[in-house]
């Protein structure tokens, strides 16, 4: 099976700081792939580089067999790749419905957008209920639902999520993980950066362990759960 997304030698640099130092990984169609590691390991930088929010210093990113390394961020959602950013970053001053409408901004196909509205309101009845409310007035958990719903509006093939459970109450965290499993069931491939290692390895198929901008371990979720690379990555920071 050809991977949906594949990187080789991916490097990200902020001025003199090398955040990601040449990593190779792939995400296959229908998988949930977890990216694990301590703060500053380069996980978020990797995701941001994939979607063009930070420039790739060197290396390549291929999506659906096409080189997207230097494609601008605004072209990727219509191509089927999008990111739920860390900290949710919903548009606080827009209503719930306006946030969702923006999620489908780059999609020309009206039928696909109409379907996306139904699918998202179906996944998140609470968003349908609060469609006229400003996103800034939602609770943290609802904002996370909105951020995911907004990303789903573009009908992504690959959905990247950066710390989707960060800062949420335990009950809501559980809902988010259950939701990710449901999304995969609906045919969306997922790449997830998570702090909650144990829980994300329960839902993931495979994972990569990052430390100091390099991949220091990889394997199936079951292998990683017991691997030394994983505990080492957190201890060494």
């Amino acid at each position, binding site marked *: 099976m050809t991977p949906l997304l594949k990187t080789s030698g991916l490097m990200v640099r902020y001025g003199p700081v090398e955040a990601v130092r040449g990593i190779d990984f792939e995400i296959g169609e229908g998988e949930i792939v977890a990216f694990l590691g301590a703060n500053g390991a380069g996980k978020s930088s990797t995701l941001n580089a994939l979607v063009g929010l930070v420039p790739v210093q060197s290396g390549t990113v291929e999506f659906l067999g096409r080189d997207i390394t230097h494609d*601008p961020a605004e072209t*990727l*959602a219509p191509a089927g790749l999008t990111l739920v950013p860390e900290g949710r970053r919903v*548009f606080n001053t*827009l209503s719930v419905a306006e*946030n969702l409408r923006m999620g489908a*901004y780059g999609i020309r196909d009206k039928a696909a957008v109409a379907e996306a509205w139904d699918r998202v309101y179906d996944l998140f009845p609470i968003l349908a209920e609060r469609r006229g409310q400003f996103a800034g007035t939602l609770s943290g958990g609802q904002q996370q639902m909105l951020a995911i719903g907004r990303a789903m509006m*573009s009908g992504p093939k690959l959905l990247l999520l950066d710390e989707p459970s960060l800062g949420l109450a335990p009950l809501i965290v559980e809902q988010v993980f259950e939701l990710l499993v449901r999304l995969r069931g609906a045919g969306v491939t997922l790449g997830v950066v998570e702090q909650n290692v144990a829980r994300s390895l329960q839902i993931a198929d495979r994972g990569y362990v990052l430390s100091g901008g390099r991949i220091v371990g990889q394997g199936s979720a079951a292998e990683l759960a017991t691997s030394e690379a994983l505990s080492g990555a957190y201890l060494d920071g």
Partner: protein
Amino acid sequence: MDFFLQQTVNAVSLGGTYALLALGLAVVFSIMGLINFAHGELMTIAGYVLMYCGLAGLPFVLSIGLAIGAATVAAVLMERIAFRPVRNASGATLLITSFAVSMVLQVLFQNLISVRSQPVLLPPLLSDSVRMFGFVIGVNKLLSIAATVVMLIFLDWFMKRQKTGIAMRAAAEDFAVARLMGIRANSVIAGAFALSGLLAGVAAVLWVSQRASVDPLMGFTPVLKAFIAAILGGLGSLRGAVAGGFLLGFIEIYLAAYLPPEWQEFRDPIGLVLVVIVLLMRPNGLIPAPALKAHKV
């Protein structure tokens, strides 16, 4: 009482023009963090188009359309030529660039048209006045208020109902995430400039129709006032710009009407003192922008 009402009409008329100009500044500032001091030159361009159309004998309604169109096109060109190359530079760089654009245009007007003030032919109807509710109002004041109301309704509809308008609000709040949604930086910024040019064009028509003349520096004073109004309202906040514009209009007109004659020469400084007092009480303006953006393009 009649005098008060009359002055109130004047204040709404002047405040509305300031509000349109302040909105134009705020739309651009909220999206790219640029305070566009060349906004005034967009007004001047619209003013000269009115003048030339008058000389060519075009019907006034057509002249208005051409003048507003010219300001809109000029705003888009300004962005494309001057501001796009420095888009990601610091706020100071953007500000200096806008001063440069402003001065280049002023010098061009002075050398290619005239250093002096030129008369603009206006339909006689504009200088008429009508009796309403027992007092006399100038037709130009009434039309100016009507135009302001129409523009504010249009803008509200555009920003809330139109996909492009919603995208501008989204980009103003978080540009990086807006791009993730597929919102193109170039088109949303060009759209913001077009909107600011449209507003400057309408404001220019209102301004010129009260004065019947245009000169190379025409745009400077109203845009300086609009800048004060935008700060007063909360820089980058669209509602704030409207509120600030009207408040400044009221302050200026009431001071002109009610200050004793021997104080009149201190009218502007007294007005600014009132503005400073408001800002001391509300440092972020009357209706602050929701968030000072951490994320630029």
